[in-house]
């Protein structure tokens, strides 16, 4: 048999440090939930985490927990639990997996961190619908379950420019959260602390940007699959010193890789942009599949979504509003296409892969003609693969492999003819 090449993926040395700070974060959350003196807030991934941190809340991110359910492949078994109580298999599989896990009393945290049994019990739930409506439904379910307040921001959507009118709207909505949060936390908002938190968030996301932009180098020193793991601190520890320190270390390691000319994938032949969510339960397989083909999937909208250049400690609340509105997912296709186009150029991309995730329409940008438009305008070929973030019943591995291999063969043909 023709010998298939073994995949070569390089381990990132800083991973150990990241595991450590993530572990400290989870133990601290657990301690906060157990302490009578501390309060726990649950927050959506691009919700007002800065405000919550500044008010002393320990902040849990259910999306992070749901992604862990996906990555540990526990999700597919748990989703049906939520289906049976009326949450359709067609809606967000983060929501259904997470609620399913709660109903079954199961958590990946318990496996990874001895002594922790479940996510911390919330005192308040705070959402921002900038990403989707599902987060509001998800949090509302827990609000009823725990009998705690659920408040949030109902975001404008599908706009091209972040106008001052929209910033006014969201700023006011953020301000309107403060009285409830003060009541739950038992302390008034300290503006100096909010400024400090916003400054740290800004610094963290700035470093995260630099980390991701190391992939502009040829060969790229990190892949999208590395990014999905290493974005952990940018998601759950935004606004803290630990996250900032961590990204300094990671950045230095990646810069060294560039200096050594060492790519994340051996003999990088093609450079791919990933549009959409990862298939959490298949991170390893996908990463190996591309490595075997000498293909670097090196940049994504998803990982880049945690870069918020708008945070400004001088204007904390307005700049938070701007940052939450600036998010890719909440913008119009016109904006999204401009954004992707400049990324394709900046990262020297040969092809785009869209992941059409069955249960997350908001992160599936292949449904309104975008691949065709972008392909026409840039000449860069694209592939759409069907799958899901968490529900592996929607994933066909054989179809994915054939589609990806056929796509790479197409890129090869182009190169041969060029």
């Amino acid at each position, binding site marked *: *048999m023709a010998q298939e090449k073994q995949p070569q993926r390089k381990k990132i040395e800083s991973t150990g440090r990241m595991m450590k700070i993530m572990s400290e974060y989870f133990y601290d959350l657990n301690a906060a939930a157990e302490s009578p003196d501390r309060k726990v807030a649950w927050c959506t991934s691009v919700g007002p985490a800065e405000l919550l941190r500044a008010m002393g809340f320990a902040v849990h991110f259910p999306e992070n927990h749901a992604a862990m359910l996906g990555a540990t492949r526990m999700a597919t078994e748990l989703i049906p639990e939520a289906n049976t109580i009326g949450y359709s298999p067609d809606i967000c599989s983060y929501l259904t997996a997470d609620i399913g896990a709660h109903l079954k009393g199961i958590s990946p945290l318990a496996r990874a961190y001895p002594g922790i049994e479940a996510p911390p019990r919330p005192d308040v739930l705070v959402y921002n619908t900038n990403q989707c409506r599902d987060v509001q439904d998800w949090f509302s379910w827990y609000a009823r379950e725990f009998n705690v307040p659920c408040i949030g921001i109902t975001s404008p959507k599908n706009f091209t420019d972040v106008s001052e009118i929209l910033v006014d709207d969201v700023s006011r909505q953020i301000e309107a959260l403060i009285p409830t949060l003060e009541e739950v936390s038992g302390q008034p908002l300290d503006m100096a602390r909010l400024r400090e938190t916003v400054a740290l968030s800004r610094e963290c996301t700035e470093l995260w940007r630099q980390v991701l932009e190391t992939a502009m180098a040829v060969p790229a020193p990190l892949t999208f699959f590395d990014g999905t793991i290493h974005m952990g601190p940018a998601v759950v520890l935004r606004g803290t010193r630990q996250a900032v320190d961590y990204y300094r270390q990671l950045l230095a390691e990646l810069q060294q890789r560039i200096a050594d000319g060492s790519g994340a994938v051996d003999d990088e032949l093609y450079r791919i942009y990933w549009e959409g969510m990862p298939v959490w339960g298949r991170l390893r397989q996908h990463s190996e599949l591309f490595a075997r083909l000498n293909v670097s999937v090196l940049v994504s909208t998803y990982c880049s979504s945690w870069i918020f250049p708008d945070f400004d400690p001088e204007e904390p609340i307005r700049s938070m509003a701007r940052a939450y509105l600036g998010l890719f997912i909440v913008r119009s296709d016109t904006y999204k296409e401009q954004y992707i186009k400049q990324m394709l150029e900046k990262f020297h991309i040969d092809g785009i892969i869209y992941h059409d995730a069955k249960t997350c329409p908001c992160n599936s940008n292949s449904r309104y003609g975008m691949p065709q438009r972008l392909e026409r305008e840039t000449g860069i070929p694209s592939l759409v693969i069907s799958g899901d973030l968490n529900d592996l019943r*929607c994933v066909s591995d*054989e179809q994915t492999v*054939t589609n990806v291999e*056929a796509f790479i*063969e197409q890129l090869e043909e182009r190169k041969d003819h060029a």
Partner: protein
Amino acid sequence: MTRPVFIGLDMGASRTKVVAIDDQGTLLGHAVKKSGIDFAATAAICLDDALAGAGAGRSDIAAAMATGYGRSNVAFVTSRSKTEISCHARGCFHSFPEALTIIDIGGQDNKIIKLDAAGRRQGFKMNRKCAAGTGAFLEEMSARLDIPLEEMNNLARRATEMIKIGSYCTVFSATEVLESIRHGKPVADIIKGIFYSMIQRVLEMDSLTEKVVLCGGVVAHNPYLVEMTEEMIGRPVLLPEYPQLTGAIGAALFAREEAGKR
């Protein structure tokens, strides 16, 4: 040694196809068998049959490439495998060297592949994880109607009317079919509706360019599908001499090209 032969093997989920071609690309021998559960054994039997047809033996094999679902289960290949997308494209372009839209209807999946006038792939689409429009759909319907697969084509041709199926879903479609039987509708009309639904599912996957080629086992065994497609798209369709073998022929042509580079 007689003359060198180049082998292409298309190991589909449903059928295994092997061809032997010469250095001019002429088809010398071929074999098709159910893939079954022992892919390696089926591949070996098909290989020997195809070689026998070509009047050659294993020692005459200059190069061999595998494609299809089971492409990594084959022992005697000499080149790294390629996907069936590339191989169907190569096989069809060999027969029709011009800008093409290729529609392959297989046992488990469908593909639409677009090539420019130089044979370069412009893009492709595979059906999603669903049997709609595939051979598996037809098999399910034949089982429901209790009519052998081989008879479906002639029955469809005899239809005077057509009873359309509304659903995407194979199971719901089967329910619709049973409903029609219950209402005493002619079986031929029902089968024509089944054929129509298959083609419709495939056509809605992508837009078509001027020249359209149909290939795959389902088309090979149901030529009426070709006529229906022509009617539906309003122009003639190109059909390779061996529609079921285009993937295997493509693989053999690639094997020959790679041997030439060595």
